[in-house]
């Protein structure tokens, strides 16, 4: 899904938190949103997900202004799982879309296997660890083959082994299904591993955008350079 935004502005309590003249996310790309806290990354993600409306400006999805909710999903940093089994959590979006029981069962099993969660199929969601919860949330988000996948720090507070598993699965599925993916991350190594594009935000503005190799290895903007080097003083 190709996403274009024009003159996006968003304020909270009179404070401008997002001010993007124009830009976009290329179809099939994996874009890392980077920047210090308060840069406007989550606000941009929520606007792209259709959870919030901008005060000004427009977002076009494949040329259309209305957000196609059935094709967009967002996974939060601390995902909420329904108080039921892992299987039912993953099946829920497919039930909403009227898929047959056989189709749902097949897709659930496929995702559980991909994430190494087969043993947890009948497990109640509140008995899962943080990493398992994040994996189930991811499987649920991917279950209905979204065209735009938005991830808000999907591996924050997760151990390196589980992080690697999640990254492996994300790469495999987003490549296989050509899902346009936007990931907020503070982990620049992860941004390099997972993403082909990077958008650096600072105080609500886009200060640099380009391929991850360019932006992370040879940043052109001084703020990006300081951020990448860990020298940015807020």
């Amino acid at each position, binding site marked *: 899904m190709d996403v274009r935004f024009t003159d996006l502005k968003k304020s909270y309590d009179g404070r401008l938190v997002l001010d993007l003249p124009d830009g976009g996310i290329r179809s099939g790309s994996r874009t890392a949103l980077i920047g210090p806290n308060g840069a406007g990354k989550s606000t941009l993600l929520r606007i792209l997900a259709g959870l919030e409306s901008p005060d000004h400006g427009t977002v076009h999805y494949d040329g259309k202004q209305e957000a196609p909710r059935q094709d967009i999903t967002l996974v939060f940093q601390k995902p909420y799982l329904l108080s039921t089994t892992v299987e039912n959590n993953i099946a829920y979006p497919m039930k*909403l879309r009227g898929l047959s029981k056989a189709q749902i069962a097949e897709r659930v099993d496929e995702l559980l296997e991909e994430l190494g969660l087969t043993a947890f199929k009948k497990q109640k969601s509140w008995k899962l660890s943080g990493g398992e919860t994040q994996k189930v949330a991811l499987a*649920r988000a991917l279950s209905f083959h979204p065209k735009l996948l938005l991830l808000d720090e999907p591996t924050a507070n997760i151990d390196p082994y589980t992080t690697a598993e999640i990254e492996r699965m994300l790469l495999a599925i987003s490549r296989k299904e050509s899902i346009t993916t936007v990931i907020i991350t503070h982990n620049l190594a992860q941004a390099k591993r997972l993403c082909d594009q990077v958008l650096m935000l600072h105080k609500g503005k886009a200060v640099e955008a380009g391929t991850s190799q360019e932006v992370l290895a040879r940043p052109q903007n001084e703020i990006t350079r300081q951020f990448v080097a860990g020298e940015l003083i807020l």
Partner: protein
Amino acid sequence: MDTIGHGFEEAIRLIFAGDAEIFEIVGLSLYVSIFSVVVSTILGIPLGILLGTCRFRGKGILVRIIYTLMSLPPVIAGLAVFLILMRRGPLGSLQLNYTVAAMIIAQICLVTPIIIGLTYNMVKEKALVVNQLGMTLGAGRIQRLRLLIYEMRVGITTAVISGFGRAISEVGAVMIVGGNIKGKTRVMTTYISELKGMGNFERAMAVGLILLLISFVVNAALYHFQERESR
């Protein structure tokens, strides 16, 4: 201790002897309580959800009023219903005072705020996150509402059982509007009150134990449901 012991023996005897009067009183108690709780649930859950999800002027005041009504003294509820239904009252033409219908109305007044208040608190806690989750998974408005109710199912059950507990154990309101008329509006709590007045402590204890037994069965069912849902 003798009174309690004899009361216990009497309770067992009454249950197994099939005392017609006791069965009638227990039956009416259950009927009034269950009927009022069903109506209160039908009213209270949608109102609690509306209150929790809508923004409007005066919401803060309304919530405070509902919280106050959650602990409304039954005699006040009974008195208010009695005054409204009395012959010279606004609904006097219905001639409902000293009927089962008046008892149900009084209990609805007591139970509905409890269900609204408890539902409102659950909605406040869950609505935002469940609504956002629903939106990110492609659920429409009705589907998100259903999801919210599903996620609150244990809490809703607790609210309903709390309402039932209030209804079945209530004496002041049903005494005022029902009058404790034998064979017509006499329920367990008003009967216990009358037996105590007559000095028949054993029988009062016996009816009290039956009331406790009913309460235990209802709460055991709730506990079973909660355990099943959290296992």
